[in-house]
């Protein structure tokens, strides 16, 4: 892929992202109940005139096309607007939740890769053997266990029964490392704060394992199929015929070529996970993006939802784009 092609692909992102914002804007405003009504729902005395005044102050009485235009104009200025409920800049709200989600995503992806790639390769190489059977059943289990169930089982075992791991949150109060990136593991390494490193690793363990397990299942299956396809290719047979050892053939000649589908799956998974996993974040009281967005939808906090979806769309499209680029690196035969 040359620079012009990359630029071309990048420019294609703009209409996609615009389209997504328009759809989300329309959907949010079509949903009954506006933020002002929701704010006072099921609560004591407030008059219709009061509600109307709040709508005016928040700019909700403006015609929808103007509200949408203001939103777009804000984006161009780098201003994502103010949260209607929290009355804070949306940008700050999103930024405050991102490190937690990024850290959890990275750990979950790492765990899934550590489990899935070796398991997938072994299963493919020893096809129909006991290893393959165990791997297949394991993958089925991993995909079938709902995250909230697995999360709660881990909490009950490691947190309550054995009491060896913390149940919720990112780190105990007072142990946070100095902020550099907002990622506690990275920051604690950078500042040499090993107590904070251990504490945040302990808090990360259960949510990352929960999220990583379900992802590992899919990744393992994809790696296995990719590997199966490759090991029957002529060049592998040739390499074996040359007298190279089985392990060397598989790792040096097979794996690299077999990984393309795995890369796509993992990249798209990262795109999804960076949006924050509402379920895992709720179960482990993890202060990530997913919870913020779902709460904002319930509160009809339009600016937060719109901005978050914008970020999602951009992340997803970017990850997809990166996967394509990585493809061409792994497999130079692929051209776009």
């Amino acid at each position: 892929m040359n620079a012009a092609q990359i630029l071309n692909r990048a420019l294609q992102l703009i209409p996609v992202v615009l389209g997504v914002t328009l759809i989300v804007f329309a959907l949010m405003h079509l949903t009954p109940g506006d933020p002002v009504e929701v704010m006072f729902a099921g609560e004591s005395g407030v008059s219709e005139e009061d509600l109307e005044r709040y709508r005016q102050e928040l700019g909700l009485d403006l015609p929808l096309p103007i509200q949408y235009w203001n939103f777009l104009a804000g984006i161009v200025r780098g201003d994502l607007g103010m949260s209607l409920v929290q009355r804070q800049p949306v940008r700050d709200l999103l930024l405050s939740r991102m490190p937690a989600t990024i850290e959890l995503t990275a750990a979950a992806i790492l765990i899934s890769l550590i489990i899935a790639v070796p398991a997938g390769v072994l299963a493919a190489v020893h096809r129909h053997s006991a290893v393959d059977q165990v791997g297949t059943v394991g993958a089925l289990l991993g995909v079938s266990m709902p995250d909230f169930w697995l999360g709660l089982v881990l909490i009950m075992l490691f947190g309550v029964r054995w009491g060896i791991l913390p149940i919720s949150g990112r780190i105990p109060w007072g142990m946070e490392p100095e902020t550099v990136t907002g990622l506690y593991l990275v920051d604690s390494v950078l500042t040499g704060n090993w107590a904070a490193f251990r504490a945040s690793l302990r808090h990360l363990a259960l949510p990352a394992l929960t999220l990583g397990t379900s992802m590992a299942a899919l990744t393992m299956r994809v790696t296995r199929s990719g590997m199966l396809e490759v090991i029957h290719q002529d060049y592998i047979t040739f390499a074996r015929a040359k007298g190279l050892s089985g392990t060397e053939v598989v790792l040096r000649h097979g794996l690299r070529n077999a990984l393309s589908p795995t890369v796509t799956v993992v990249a798209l998974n990262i795109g999804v996970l960076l949006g924050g996993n509402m379920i895992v974040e709720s179960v482990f009281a993890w202060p990530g993006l997913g919870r913020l967005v779902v709460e904002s939808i319930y509160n009809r906090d339009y600016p937060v939802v719109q901005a978050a979806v914008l970020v999602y769309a951009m992340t997803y499209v970017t990850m997809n784009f990166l996967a394509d680029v990585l493809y061409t690196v792994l497999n130079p035969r692929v051209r776009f």
Partner: protein
Amino acid sequence: MRLGIIAASLLIAVAAAAGHAQDADTIVVGITADLQNLDPHNFRHRETETVLRNIYDGLVTRGPDMQPVPELAESIVQIDETTWEFRLRRGVKFHDGTEMTARDVAFSINRYVKEGAMGGQTSPRKDLLGPVTHAEAVDDYTVRVYLSAPWSVFLPYLVHHMIVPASVGDGLVEHPIGTGPFRFVEWVRGSHVVLERFDDYYGGAPDLGRSGPAPAKRVIFRIIPENATRLAALMAGEIDIMANVPVHAIADIERHPDLELRPVMGTRSYFTEFNVRRPPFDDVRVRQALNYAIDVDLVIDQLLGGLGQPLPTILSPLSFGYNDELEPYPYDPERARQLLAEAGYPNGFEFELSVENKRRDVAEAYAFMLAQVGVTANIRVWGDYNTMVEAMRRGELDAIMTDWGDSTMDPTGIFIPKLRTGDRGNFGGYSNPAVDALIEFAESTTSLEARAEAYRYAQKLVYEDAPMLFEYITQELYAQRKSLSGWDPIPDSRINLHTAVKQ
């Protein structure tokens, strides 16, 4: 695969290397939702008030019997129908060390009631001060509050208003400064709020029998939205108090040697609103019949773990003007069948019963009981409260199961919005001119006795009109570790930790 298992167990082994110790000076409370912001003038949200009320005190607070008692005020005099004078306690300090004076109190009240006073926006709590127009400092320790009309429930409403320093104003959003027992340390969004003991605390309301600074050095409110996780955190000792205990957890908590269940009468009434604009619920006999056909006691017993009380209307027994002569509709299927026959439905009828997912079990119990008197209720489950309510307001639904919270313990908080003709919470279209007239009278009279009498009579009318299937008020459920003492749950959902101690 083997490699993966080894790596995963290695990660867990490293992570599990040390246990966690909980500081005995620190009280940790598990709540369900994050705060909206830290400005005491800028929210309408339960959890936000729960936390902020530990940082801020008000002119008045609630005494043990839920009636208002002086807190930052020393004495309260009503000068005339629309003027109140508050004499303030002397020597009360804000967390930044400055002394609280009448100027701060006047500033706080004006920031609540003046349009655009909050950096160009109006406080969403303005209507919680009804007809209050403004306040002014008479001298350093005297404040006068002016109303545009007599308002008998001024003091109960004033409980929900907190006093801030005039010098800080809009800076409160980032760093709250109050006169309460705990001072603000940090808020990590979506995660926790940390407060520390304020050593110069004056001691709070004398009527609550408190004095001096809090014994606990630090208080942490942790946001743990998932019920099962909050319970696990309580069992593991990560938190000391758990808010919003679900009914299905009662048995686990009662069985646990270190935990204690703490129920308290709640402020939320539950009921099923009928669409009275069209058949079959335009007929009062049908509405009464359904009230007779439901065994509310059984539902409370079987589905709410016994933690509820049947209501004759929708008003809480703790509310001002509650009519204790009315008895909840008894369970009488025979009478229900008879009323249905009189209304022209000897073989019953079919209708759609709308409900949110959280009360689906109750809806199914109702459908079963209604089937016994020949009425078929087709349950429709809604994912979103506002969507359901909007459809009802437009008159498209037959009946919706809903609820309404009233932390003011006064008819203005629930009776008026739900039952006055065309009011904002009146989704079913109920309209009785006599009830409207009684409300109008009650809200204009200055005699508390006449006001109470008017509401008692209005409740009787509503009881007979049965615009709703009257259900129950639930108890709020908290749980705590037994190592904690000196804390009691209160009905209006604040968690005041001034006297809490941990062994």
